Structures are given as C-alpha cells and as structure tokens.
C-alpha cells in the first residue's frame, strides 16, 4: 500500500501536506522501539506508519527489545497495574525489569536523532539519554488515569527523564513535569476491516453467519468482557424491542486463557435466553471482513462499554457512516460529538432511548452517520496520525506556540 492510494479518500491536498511536512524532517533519523513485532495495537500501528514515514523520505526505523518469560510476566503486571488493577512489584521484579532494559542497550542506534519509545516495557532505556543525548519521547498507548500509584511511580521515574510524552486522550494522562502531546490513534480505511465492501461480499458474510436482514440490525462489536458490557447491550435491545421489532448482534472474540471471558459469555447467553433475534457470534482472530460486513449491515451500532481504551470500534463504525450510540467513556467522546456525529449515552435507558430514536428516524440516523464519517475522515484516519507524529518530531525542537518552518 502506498500513501498515494489514500489520495482518493483524504484528498490530494492532505497527501501533499504530508510531503511538505516530511521535507522539514529530511536527514532526521527516528528510531521506534517497542517490545513486540507482531500482535497487539502498537505493532499494528508501527507496521503501517514506519513504511509510510520511509516513503515520505523520513529516515524511520523500528526495533524490538528482547526479554524472556519472566520479563513479559512483569511487564504484563505493569500493564494491568497501569490500567488500575491492584498489583505490586517486588524489588526483584523491578531489578529484572531494569536488567532486561540494560541488556537491550545495543538496540539503541547512536545515530538516531529521536528515540521514540512505545509503552512501559522499554521505558527504562531512557537511562542512556545522558550518554547518547538527542531527543527522547515516550508514547503511552494505554489509559493510565486510574493507574496503581505504586507501579506508576516506578514507571514515572523513567518517564520524567524524557523530553516529551504522548497520550491518546486528555483523560488518559497524569500531570508530568515534561511536555505531554495529544495524539489519538487511527484506523486504516484501506484495511480489510474498513475497506469498502460490495453488497455481495456483505451478503456472503451474513449468509455464512445465518443473519437475515428481515429486521433492523443493532450491533455491538467487542470482546466478551465485563467492561464492554454486552449484558447491558442486551438490556438496551430488550427495551428497544418493546417498540421496534429488531435484532441484536453481539460479535467478538474470547480468549481461551481468560476465565473472565468465559464467565461473561455465560452471563450473556443466560440473559439472551432463547430469543431468536439475539445473535451471539464468537469470531476467531483475523475475522476482519466479517466485522466489516456486520458493521456495514447494521442499522445502528452500539458500544455500551463501562470503560474503554480508545474505543476505535466506534471510529470503524462511523467510517461506514453508521449511526452510533456509545457510552461517554475513554476516547469515545473524542470520536462522537453528541447529536452531531453520533449519540453519547450514560445509562441503559438512555442508550435504548437513542437507539429507538435512530431506528424510528432514518433521516436523522443517516445525517448523524454521514457527519460521523466526515469526522473520522478529518480526524481518525492514519494520514492524520502520520502528520501528527511528524509534527511531534518537529515540536521537540521548538517551545513556541507558532513555529515557522
């Protein structure tokens, strides 16, 4: 995929602008460092953005630190603790974390101008800042607003030494003595999950999944996880069903090694009882076309989460010009301007009321969906993400409000 392939979606002017900005970065070497080359959101983002930066003539590279089982067990604990889970790190665990970061020192390329470190796993590499100099940025891909304070203090002791940090949403951050930039994640409009589908492709997926479009479709795409509140989704549907004969699709994956998801699924099935209009679909990893088709076949998309990371499934649905009703949590309020590009809810009753409104007023639903799609086009496609990363590299050299390049 080349950047010019996106021209028909975002406009030639946007791609030209990326080229203009990239010219200002000529000769700069940017080194991205994270802890995994495959799987997970960070690797997915880097897999797309690094080649595009290179295509634009920016000397970007990407390296991965190595660590054993023990290291990744510790970083998983850190990850959970930063999400708010009660965890403690023993002095030995802290020691091991530092030791692995130290062993990965050779990953750092001394010729780099910017060290772009992603997430907590390689955060301690900043201890080599004194030796190597240059600019250091820490990219936090997670919501640390309710972080376990003890573990955060440990990570913060490294973060404070960076020149800048990046968060996905204002509410995800914590006061820090360094600059904090706001860069939201993005979706790729040409990926399998988001590209245009023909009616035949959509129909073929629906047939495979035994879904018939004989009744309006309300869909929630998310893991079977308490925080995504699929049970609440059923309650919303049941309130709507009293007035509009519709069907509900709950589609997402489960993790075999996650006992919680099994429990959630059990509760969902219990709640759904024998209602033939509730479709519970367990999708295997990589079901991108299926998700795409389900979103496109929906009349209303629901995201009734209790807590969210950024909640990019909302941007995915909006990109398909679907009217969305979603909880005002995590990064969702950044994606939906209430009553302009979707509807934000705070309760099951509120969500049901909005879903009903949309199903009964197709023109209103259509307008919200179209506005939502334009909002995503302007703000949540990877071209915007690419632009902001480049601006960030430039911003590290400037403190002023207006920078003339």
């Amino acid at each position: 995929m080349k950047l010019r392939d996106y021209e028909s979606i975002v406009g030639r002017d946007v791609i030209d602008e990326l080229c203009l900005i990239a010219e200002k970065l000529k000769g700069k070497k940017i080194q991205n460092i994270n802890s995994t080359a495959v799987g997970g959101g960070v690797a997915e983002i880097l897999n797309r953005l690094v080649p595009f930066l290179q295509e634009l003539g920016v000397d970007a590279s990407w390296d991965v630190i190595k660590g054993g089982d023990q290291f990744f067990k510790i970083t998983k604990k850190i990850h959970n603790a930063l999400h708010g889970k009660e965890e403690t790190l023993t002095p030995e665990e802290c020691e091991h974390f530092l030791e692995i970061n130290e062993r990965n020192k050779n990953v750092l390329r001394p010729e780099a101008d910017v060290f772009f470190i992603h997430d907590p796993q390689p955060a301690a590499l900043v201890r080599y800042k004194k030796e190597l100099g240059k600019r250091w940025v820490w990219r936090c891909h997670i919501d640390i607003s309710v972080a376990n304070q003890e573990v955060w203090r440990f990570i913060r002791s490294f973060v404070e030494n960076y020149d800048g940090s990046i968060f996905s949403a204002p509410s995800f951050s914590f006061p820090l003595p360094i600059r904090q930039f706001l860069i939201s994640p993005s979706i790729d409009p040409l990926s399998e999950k988001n590209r245009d589908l023909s009616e035949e492709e959509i129909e073929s997926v629906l047939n495979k999944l035994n879904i018939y479009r004989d009744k309006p479709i309300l869909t929630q795409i998310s893991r079977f996880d308490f925080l995504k509140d699929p049970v609440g989704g059923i309650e919303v549907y049941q309130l709507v069903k009293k007035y509009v004969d519709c069907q509900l699709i709950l589609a997402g994956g489960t993790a075999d090694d996650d006992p919680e998801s099994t429990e959630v699924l059990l509760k969902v099935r219990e709640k759904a009882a024998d209602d033939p209009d509730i479709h519970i679909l367990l999708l295997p990893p990589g079901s991108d076309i299926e998700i795409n088709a389900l979103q496109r076949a929906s009349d209303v998309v629901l995201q009734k989460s209790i807590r969210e990371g950024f909640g990019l499934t909302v941007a995915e649905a909006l990109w398909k010009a679907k009217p969305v009703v979603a909880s005002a949590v995590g990064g969702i309020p950044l994606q939906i301007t209430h009553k302009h590009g979707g509807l934000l809810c705070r309760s099951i009753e509120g969500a049901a009321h909005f879903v009903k409104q949309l199903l009964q007023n197709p023109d209103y639903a259509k307008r919200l969906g179209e506005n939502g799609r334009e909002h995503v086009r302007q703000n949540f496609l990877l071209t915007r993400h690419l632009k902001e990363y480049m601006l960030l590299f430039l911003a590290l050299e400037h403190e002023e409000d207006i920078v003339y390049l």
Partner: protein
Amino acid sequence: MPQKSSSKAGETFHFFTRVHLRELTGLRAHNLTELLEHLRTVPGSVIYHHTHHFLQQHQYLSPEPPNDFAYWVTESLNNNRLGERLASINTTEFPTIRDLREKIIKTIESEAERKKDQNQAPEGEEFHFVRAVSFVLPTPYVATDLQEFLEGLKKVTIGSLYYHIFESRLRLEKPTNDFSHWLEENLGEKALAGQINKLDPYTHTMEGLRKRLISLIEKRIPKMQKESHEAKRL
C-alpha cells in the same frame, strides 16, 4: 513572519498552510468555578484552541460550530442557557484573543453569579485545557494575479484557508485577513477584498468557505477582464 513579505504592495502572494499539534496543559475543570479560574490564567494558545479547533475538526458541521466551552457547559454541566450564550459569542467581533477571553470570562461570570451554578461534570467528562502548537509552512502555490490566486485557492488545503483567514486575523492580531489585504494592496481589488472581509468565516464550513471565495472571484474575473478591455480601448 513569512506571510508578511507576501502581502506587501506589488508582491506575489505565497500560500502558506497551517497544521497543528495538540499539547496537554494538565489543567482540568470539574465545574464553572474551576473553568473560570483556569480561563483567567491559561496561555492565549489554549483559548485559541478551544474556540477554533471545531472549525477544522468538525468542518462538515455547519452552521453550528460551537466552541468547546459552549459544548462542555451544555453537554457535561447541563447548563443549556449558558451553553447557548457561549455558543453565540461572535468570534469575529473580537480583534484579539485577549478580548475574546475577556468576553468568555464575563459571560460565564454573569451566569455563575446568577445561578450560583455548582453543577459538577460527571466523572471522566472534566474539561481538559489543551494548547495548540501551530506550524506554518510555505506551500508551492503562488499568485501574481487574480486568475493564479483562484487556481491556488482551489488547490491548497483547508489548513491554508484557515491560516490566511482565521489565524492571521485573530491570533496574529492583523486587522484583516491575508486574502483581502493582498487583493486590495496588490491588485487594487478593494470591493472584492471588502466582500471577503465581510464574510463571517465562523458560520461556514472550511470547504463551504472555499466555495464561497471561489465563487466571488469567479464572478469578479470576467468583470475585471471587461474593465481592463474597456480601459485599453479608451
């Protein structure tokens, strides 16, 4: 400032573009009192961001691009009256960010006093103060006459329109927008410059504004050609 040289009499117009990056200030408000407290002290670039980013981020939402304060007060504090008053602040009336800040503060103060409003935003819906860092870059597009100006206008990004129309006037405290200034000073197009300056850019989407500008210039070009032809005949 790069655009300064381009708007001197007899000079080529260089189209610049403006892109921005958002920086968190770490300041947040849960209610009107906290909102007011921070409004008095945050840098101008913060006020600018919250009164202008809607124009670029929600450029399809016409005709109501409210400012962030209006949106938050309405949606998170449920204060519709104040929200409406904040949304109706006519940004074009204020020549500087300082004046705009004063107006916003006064509007909130009067309402806070009247209602003793102490509504709290629900958890997670606090107002976060964000600063805009602007980057101004030259584009390859230049104009020496109205036709070239029109061609450039058709090709530049909305960031360029934004820069020449909004940023130059309010944030850089210029008395008019760059387009009107250049058209009047260089081409003697006083009437056209006046028409453009009179447009309320805050009630158009950026693409809508581009269309309006193009239409004004396209109407003017044949008239101008006719005038020039007649002048030659005389």
